[in-house]
């Protein structure tokens, strides 16, 4: 009718409706140029005569790679003519999403909104706060195996989850309501929020590991553009992308609300360590290994992490704080009594002091472990009198020297004295005895007595490490013994698989483990993240660039607070520029060059080799955006600002 009132000529527009089937011919509509997109869709739907919910569908202009999302715009305004190939397709389509923990989900993601918003939607569904820190990455192609058995990979389906636009999902039982629908969904949520068990060493070994800074730089060429939609970036329905933390500025981590976020962050950090994506020293690697071991152990034993409802949470925490209060103000008398009548250990052990006697040999004495001291006597009968010697272990160093198969259970003590450190070896007869005395020594070295409530758990952990050594020793080809035992090779990067046998690794990890054994799951995860964040190279995303006026490729490291220039040949940091000294940065999109001006008339310019300059631009703008976040406005994400800072010429 409107076409009649106007004097415009009607023409034929053909639209492919995918839902009609692959072979169905395009639907042809008679339209005029002043018809708005909404009108086109209305006509189209009428013509298909299919009754269904079309609300998620929109028109996609194939030649121009663009969505016609403004329904009030006329065809003329969109400059659409009869030759346009339009597709009528849903805006949300299934996507296979690889998570940091290695699990693949299938879920509905927006293919029409900028990737930034798509990620927001995904994070909302998965209950991850601060989606601005994450983004999507094209996966590294896996080498196709001859036998395509990997295609049988398990995929967890979330496509049934209704799309919601609420900014905060309502929680039910501590998880978003859609995960509480069925046991299957609940299981998926568990997968998201609980850390995965350590991977088999072979799995680590076969994963791609960057061998150099340049290798590490290549991965950053794969980030999707946050200001364009998936369709525009060639991502098809059911394609695979990775969800990863991209900006290493983790804001406002709150274990109570960030169960999934923390779990995934931990997984990403753990894999970064295991695959040597970030370098660390051997000592640090052992500590990371110990923490992984501890985290996997504790998360198996306290899986009810998020199964309590919010109300219960409050009650729990109220009760807990009450308990703490009571404890603090008046621990029960009996408890105090117990503390004061400390337990002891008494046994025959053998002692050897390498410095004192040149004669090598262990002598047997009757030992008494009390408070933080060890005393020894000639025999049990004489233990009432004065000891031959009393050694206070506070502040001493304790190291194991154990070989289970050879029945060697030595405790090496380095005991501080005004003159230096005295070396003492204690030899235990068996595992049981060793675990007890070792636990006692470890506690005493930290100034805790045997009465400390961590004594039993310390014994337990020592025993489980001994068990580990046992299975490692005899496990080659044998059936894996106790399922709780872990191959220590699962906890360290492949470099150490070559350097140490699993049983050599065990005592080293155990050694590091003693400092973390008492941490709760959350604390252990946080500690892992802290140590990761304290590594010198933490937070650096590399891009190979060519500086203006330079003839060789160099590496630009982009960190949360600075840019660094790295010499490729030597690997040294040549120069550091901090963002807070940055006056402006520009991208010349024609010659694809990034130019940055810093205070003090410092100008740098470079072109990017391993990544599009849009990616570099987005990194810099993104980090500046991250630094603008503040507590007052943390609830609302300033999307507009993000696009302004990262969008480049397309932002307008």
């Amino acid at each position, binding site marked *: 009718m409107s076409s009649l009132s106007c004097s415009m000529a009607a023409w034929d527009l053909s639209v492919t409706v995918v839902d009609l089937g692959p072979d169905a011919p395009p639907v042809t509509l008679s339209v005029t140029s002043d018809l708005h997109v909404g009108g086109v869709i209305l006509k189209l739907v009428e013509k298909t005569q299919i009754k269904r919910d079309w609300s998620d569908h929109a028109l996609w202009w194939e030649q121009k790679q663009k969505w016609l999302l403004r329904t009030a715009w006329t065809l003329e305004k969109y400059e659409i003519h009869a030759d346009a190939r339009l597709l009528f397709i849903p805006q949300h389509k299934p996507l296979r999403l690889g998570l940091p923990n290695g699990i693949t989900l299938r879920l509905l993601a927006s293919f029409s909104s900028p990737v930034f918003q798509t990620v927001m939607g995904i994070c909302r569904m998965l209950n991850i706060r601060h989606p601005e820190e994450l983004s999507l990455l094209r996966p590294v192609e896996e080498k196709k195996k001859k036998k395509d058995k990997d295609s049988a990979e398990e995929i967890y389906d979330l496509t049934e989850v209704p799309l919601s636009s609420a900014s905060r999902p309502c929680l039910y039982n501590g998880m978003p309501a859609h995960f509480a629908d069925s046991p299957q969904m609940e299981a998926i949520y568990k997968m998201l929020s609980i850390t995965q068990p350590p991977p088999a060493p072979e799995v680590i070994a076969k994963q791609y590991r960057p061998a150099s800074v340049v290798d590490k730089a290549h991965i950053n060429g794969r980030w999707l553009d946050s200001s364009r939609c998936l369709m525009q970036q060639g991502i098809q329905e059911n394609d695979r992308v990775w969800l990863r933390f991209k900006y290493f500025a*983790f804001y406002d*981590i709150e274990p109570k609300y960030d169960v999934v976020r923390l779990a995934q962050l931990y997984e990403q950090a753990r894999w970064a360590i295991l695959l*040597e994506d970030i*370098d*660390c*020293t*051997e*000592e*640090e690697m052992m*500590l990371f290994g110990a923490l992984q071991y501890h985290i996997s152990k504790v998360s198996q034993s306290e899986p009810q992490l998020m199964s309590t409802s919010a109300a219960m949470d409050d009650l729990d925490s109220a009760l807990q704080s009450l308990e703490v*209060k*009571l404890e603090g*103000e*008046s*621990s*029960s*008398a009996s408890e*105090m*009594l117990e503390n*004061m*009548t400390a337990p002891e250990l008494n046994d025959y052990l053998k002692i050897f002091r390498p410095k004192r006697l040149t004669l090598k040999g262990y002598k047997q004495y009757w030992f008494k472990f009390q408070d933080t001291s060890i005393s020894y006597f000639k025999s049990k009968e004489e233990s009432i009198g004065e000891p031959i010697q009393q050694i206070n272990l506070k*502040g001493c*160093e304790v190291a194991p020297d154990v070989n289970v198969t050879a029945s060697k259970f030595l405790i090496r003590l380095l005991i*501080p*004295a*005004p*003159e*230096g*450190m005295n070396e003492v070896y204690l030899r235990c007869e068996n595992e049981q005895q060793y675990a007890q005395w070792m636990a006692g020594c470890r506690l005493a070295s930290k100034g805790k007595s045997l009465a400390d409530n961590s004594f039993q758990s310390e014994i337990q952990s020592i025993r489980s490490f001994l068990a580990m050594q046992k299975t490692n020793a005899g496990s080659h080809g044998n059936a894996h013994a106790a399922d709780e035992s872990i191959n220590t090779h699962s906890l360290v990067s492949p*470099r150490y698989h070559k350097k140490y046998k699993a049983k050599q690794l065990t005592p080293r990890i155990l050694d590091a483990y003693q*400092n973390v054994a008492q941490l709760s799951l959350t604390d252990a995860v*946080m500690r892992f*993240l*802290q*140590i990761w*964040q*304290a*590594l*010198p*190279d933490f937070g650096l995303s590399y891009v190979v660039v060519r500086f203006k006026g330079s003839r060789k490729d160099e590496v630009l490291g982009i960190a949360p*607070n600075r840019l660094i220039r790295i010499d490729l040949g030597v*690997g*040294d940091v040549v120069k*550091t520029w901090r963002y*807070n*000294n940055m006056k402006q940065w520009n991208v010349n999109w024609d010659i694809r060059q990034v130019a940055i001006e810093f205070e*003090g008339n410092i100008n740098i310019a470079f072109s990017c080799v391993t990544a599009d300059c849009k990616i570099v631009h987005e990194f810099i703008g993104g980090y500046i955006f991250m630094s603008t976040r503040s507590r007052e406005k943390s609830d609302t994400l300033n999307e507009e600002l993000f696009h302004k800072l990262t969008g480049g010429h397309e932002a307008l």
Partner: protein
Amino acid sequence: MDDIDAMFSDLLGEMDLLTQSLGEETPPPASLPSSNQEVNFSIGFTDLNESLNELEDNDLDALMADLVADLNATEEKLAAEIQGLKEPSLPASDLPPPPPKGLSTHPSSSPSPMRSSSSSSSSDVSTPASSATSPLPPPQSTKPSKEEIEAQMKADKIKLALEKLKEAKVKKLVVKVLMNDGSSKTLMVDERQTVREVLDNLFEKTHCDCNVDWSLCETNPELQLERAFEDHENLVEPLLAWTRDSENKVLFKERQEKYEVFKNPQNFYLWKKDKKALKDIKDKDKELLIQENFCGTSIIVPDLEGVLYLKEDGKKSWKQRLFQLRASGIYYVPKGKTKSSRDLVCFVQFDNVNVYYGQDFRSKYKAPTDFCFVLKHPQIQKESQYIKYLCCDDARAMNLWVTGIRIAKYGVSLYDNFKTAEKKAAVSAVWTNRSTPSSSNASTPSPTIKAKSPSQANGHASSPQPGPLSQNVGNTLPPPPPPCEILPPPPPDPVPSPPPPPPLAAKNLARPPNLTNRHLPTNFPPPPAMDNLPPPPPPPPMDDSPEAPPDFLPPPPPAAGFGSLPPPPPPVSSLPPPPPARFGGIDQSLPPPPPDPEYLPPPPPPVFTGSGAPPPPPPPPPPPPAPAPVAAPRAAVRPSGSLKKVPPPPPKRTTPPLHGGGGGGGGGGGDFMSELMLAMQKKRGDH
């Protein structure tokens, strides 16, 4: 109420006993008893007796005053504890009256556990003591509820007794601290006291400017080492590592490098930049650096890397190596390897070592330069292969490394310490400023506190922490150090004289706080409103702070005594009444650590500091202080200080005074007390 009274009478009894015992022991010469004293207790002296005799008279007085204050504090603490006991137990059992009733009905029984513990005070009595109390309750077992009450009472008593026992195990040291000017001060330090608390104590005694650089250091002449204790450390523990014949000293002095990293973070975190750029850095960039490195999820250690000389084990030669500092320790690059992390060899981790400055190592160890630092286990006191000696090219490098190591070792505690120190300095800077006209102190307001102080002051005022504070009130107020002239100081009626150092002040004026706090524990909950204030009874923190000054005026008057100003009548008249409630109310608006001083100036800090600390601030905004403008600041500082000193050393032992031969755990404090008394009397006699 009754029970508290009962408690008090018990305590009084104890105090009486104490005085008696002192009296009895007066005759024997002071030198005798101390001979079997554990050397432990006096650091810096070979023998306690000697140490006491060596003390200056006024030192002795001061020490005595402290000790007596300690006793009072314990008493208050106990009272507060009882209160504390009651409160949680009320909701727990639905019998509201149990503990009070119990305590009041068996006044005689409650002392007994305490006595038993106190008189025998050895640490091993725990079980006997508790079993001894068990027979007590049964008297009337009519109703089950009564039994419950009894049980509860019994439990409480046992607990009390045990706590006292624990208390008795607390180690105390007499520490002689050397001042800048060569003089020394002697303090009693409790095992649980942190260096910060001791510093605050010293601030009070010395009237220094309290800037953040003041430190307590230990020196080891044998190894030629020096190290500043960190404020959060307990002082006693490292001192116990000293050997008997140790010549180590504790120094009280300003060390610029202590918190330099927070004043000029760029010198540490951007040390590679050229010097000019570092000098010209803007304040907001400094703040950003602190933010980035100390306020994130993880503390970031400056990335130090450089060639240092390492003294080779047991040899005289020094060898160069490329070292790297990481959060996890110091590493070096082995010969022929790259600098990549995985090739680094761990040189030392920080769990078991402290970092020390070496002094004059060039002559002692033939070091290439005198800029040396050392890493060693705190227990090691003599030359040993386990000590690691490192030598830097210049002082800057040395400070970079030592500070970097401290950041790696202490992490966020270091920053927390700094914030606390800064607050303390800000408060005293304000006061010193105000008092500059009259004060004789060399009060140089520290330049370091500038932009930050206002916000902190505000933060203070608005952070109410009622719970802990109410407790604090009990501990805090008692100490106004009682007189030295009056030897047996029964706490209830002290004739307070001014705190040790300053001359004579109006004595009666020191009293009001003392009196008020006396009642505090009992009725701090809902206070009677003050007479001279408008109805709104306990005003919110912000309201409170402006009013704070009047409350604290009571203390000022003493100062007025030495000033020429007559004690302004209006405030004084309103002072005596200051109902306990107000103390409580005020306290609540403050954070615990340095509680009192803060609210003295609350309104001023923003004003002064905002406009720049140094210039003598104009008439202070709050009208109240006006009456005694000149004298008030000084006087106020002192009382607040003395108040403050006490909160830290919470429970002191009451047991020792009763010639409690401190058993194994390190009792003996009792002997010490009486000895001290003896020594004093002896001295007095000599005069």
